[in-house]
Each structure stands twice: as structure tokens, then as C-alpha cells.
């Protein structure tokens, strides 16, 4: 079975899981599909910096929502084992088990929380999200392909997208279960499915409506929002492993002793 670029596909609220076999298409058909998709949609291109509203300031550098998501018992048990650097209880970097502090990829959508800019580039058949943080890249395939079945579970997930007017609707699946949803330590399973609606709300503003679903981890789907403003910056470099390398300078730096009871 092959995905067809018909109008009925786009009428569905849920993406149809088509057989992902772009390699079965002839070159001419691929070009035709790409051209059709490139002719639709909106323009999300540019460099974007997180710009949450003031109401989100108390938590926007560690969570998507002020309250905890509705977790199942399975998730609550894993959440209890988390040793986050931020949350109701805070651990030091030396004691945390947050995978980000070992420089593993943060996952989707947690990557949005990292306070470094993101750039969107649109090319026929793909929308690319580049992140200054660790030069992560999300490839959102908009050429009508379905999700892959030949990929191992991944940190950032497998993303496909379709245009709903000028809104890009992205579905991401095929996650491994090694990331945290947020910096507080909310867990998820390999069943995680993230649906995003990405659109410009005005010339200089981007809004992402996020729906997170994971029947193993959450009792019901829950929603969050993220906001960006347009900036005229270039995407530079921030390498997570520089934090680890920095420890090698500690002999040159001031050290202090923590008195601990025996």
C-alpha cells in the first residue's frame, strides 16, 4: 500500500499510518508529490527564540505546565525515582539522574525548553528544525510518507507533517523511553505520541500547540503550548559535552569543601 496525496487524507484528524515505502515510488512520482506539498502550507522559516508569556515564567525553564501531567501508576513509580535538578526536590548535577546531564538528547518536546534558539528551514518534502543546543535537527517529512517501521526507537522520534492551511501538523512517534518529558522528571514510554500544531500567529510570532499522548504513562492526553519570537540571530554552537570537559579545568579553578557529617 502506498500513501496517496488525496484530499481525503487531509480531512482526517488523525494521520493514517501509510506503508512507508518512498523508495518504491518512481523518481517522477516523488517529484510530483514533493511539488504538490511544496505548493501548500505556510511559511514558518526563520530563527526563533523562546518567548513564553509572563504567566509561564515560574516554570518555563523546566516544565510545560505548572501542574504535573495525569500520570498512571507506572509513570508515577518512575517519576518517584527521578532525581531532577529542578522541581519540588532539587538535586545537584553530581547527584542527578537526568539524562540531559549526561548529554543525551532531550527528546521531543523537551528540546524546546532548552534556552537556545531554533531555526526552521523549509525544503520540498521536509520542514527542518535546527537547534543551537547540540546542533540537534528534527526532520519533519511533509511529502506524504508514513512513519517508518525500520527504525529503532529513537531519542527525538520520527516526525511526519502535513499542512492544515498555514498550520503545520506534526506527528512524532517511535521514541525510546530514555528521555524525560520535562526537567522535573516526568517519564514516558515507547508508546509516546506527540502531535504539534505549529503556526505563525503574526509576522514575528510562532505558536506550537502540543498534545502529548502515552497510554502507558498518562491516564489521558494532555496539552501544552510553546511560544517563539522571531530573531535576526544566526544559529551558533552550544555543545553539551563542554560541561563535562569543563571539569578538567577544575584544578585551575576555585574549589571549596562541603562539610559533610561522617
Amino acid at each position, binding site marked *: 500500500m502506498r500513501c496517496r496525496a488525496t484530499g481525503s487524507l487531509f480531512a482526517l484528524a488523525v494521520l493514517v499510518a501509510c506503508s512507508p515505502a518512498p523508495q518504491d515510488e518512481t523518481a517522477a512520482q516523488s517529484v510530483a508529490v514533493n511539488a504538490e506539498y511544496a505548493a501548500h502550507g505556510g511559511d514558518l522559516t526563520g530563527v526563533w527564540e523562546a518567548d513564553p508569556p509572563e504567566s509561564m515564567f515560574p516554570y518555563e525553564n*523546566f516544565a510545560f505546565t505548572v501542574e504535573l501531567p495525569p500520570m498512571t501508576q507506572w509513570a508515577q513509580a518512575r517519576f518517584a525515582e527521578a532525581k531532577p535538578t529542578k522541581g519540588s526536590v*532539587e538535586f545537584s548535577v553530581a547527584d542527578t539522574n537526568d539524562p540531559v*546531564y549526561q548529554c543525551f538528547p532531550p527528546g521531543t518536546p523537551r528540546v524546546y*525548553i532548552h534556552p537556545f534558539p531554533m531555526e526552521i528551514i523549509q525544503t520540498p518534502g521536509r520542514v527542518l528544525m535546527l537547534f543551537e543546543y547540540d546542533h540537534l535537527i528534527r526532520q519533519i517529512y511533509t511529502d506524504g510518507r508514513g512513519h517508518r517501521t525500520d527504525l529503532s526507537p529513537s531519542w527525538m522520534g520520527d516526525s511526519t507533517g502535513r499542512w492544515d492551511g498555514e498550520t503545520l501538523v506534526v506527528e512524532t512517534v517511535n521514541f525510546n523511553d530514555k528521555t524525560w518529558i520535562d526537567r522535573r522528571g516526568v517519564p514516558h514510554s515507547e508508546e509516546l505520541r506527540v502531535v504539534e500544531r505549529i503556526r505563525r500567529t503574526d509576522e514575528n510570532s510562532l505558536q506550537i500547540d502540543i498534545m502529548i499522548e502515552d497510554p502507558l504513562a498518562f491516564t489521558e492526553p494532555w496539552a501544552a503550548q510553546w511560544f517563539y519570537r522571531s530573531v535576526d540571530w544566526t544559529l551558533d554552537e*552550544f555543545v553539551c559535552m*563542554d*560541561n563535562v570537559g569543563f*571539569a578538567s579545568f577544575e584544578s585551575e579553578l576555585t*574549589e571549596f569543601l562541603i562539610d559533610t557529617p561522617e
Partner: protein
Amino acid sequence: MRGKVVAIFSVAAGILLFSVGSSAHHGASVVYDLNQKVTMTGTVTDYQFVNPHVLIFFEVTAEDGTAVVWSAGLTSPNRLARSDGWNREMLKPGDQVSILGSPARGGAASLWVQQVFLDGTPLLGS
């Protein structure tokens, strides 16, 4: 009695993964006492405009004549360049600086920076 030895920046370095602004360094409270503010004045000995965070080393001379090299930590160079126009030439050895910041817990000679004054001129916007 002496216990665990912790190098300040091996702990503080990870904080900068998530630094949003000088007011949001909640993680820095592990190493620095954010409720305190002190100003130290001295001569720059080293200025490192590097990731994960910018470091200023400056020699402070006490009243009794002893000199101690203090360290002062800020956010990443990416963010300082964009928000406050910092670059690799912002400071150099020999510059006279006064640095306002939160002192490290335990009395080590280190600050988490709130403001840097170069010959009296503030270098940070906020």
C-alpha cells in the same frame, strides 16, 4: 570535618545548560547563595569567553596586602553576545573591575555574576 570535595564549576557548569537569565539561576543556589550579594573589586587576570559559560578571573587585594584570585561566572557567550553585546574583547588582563554577585557557599572566592563594572561602566543590561 572535611567531607566531599566539589569543584565549583563541575557543579555550576551544568547549570548553564538551562540558564535563562541572571534571575532564573535556581540551580545555581546549590553552589552560590543567591540571597546574598557582594561586590568585589580587582584586576582582571583572565577572561574566558567560552561555552558553557563565560568566566572572569580577577585578583583582589585585601587590606593586609594579600592577593586572592576570584572567579566570576556568567551565562553562555551566545546569550551574553545577544543580550548585552559581549564579545571576546570585552575584558582583558589588567582591566579594573568591580563585580557584583552572589558568593559561593562555604566561603570560596567565587561569585555568580549579577553585574560587572569596567572602570565604573556596567557591562550588563539588566
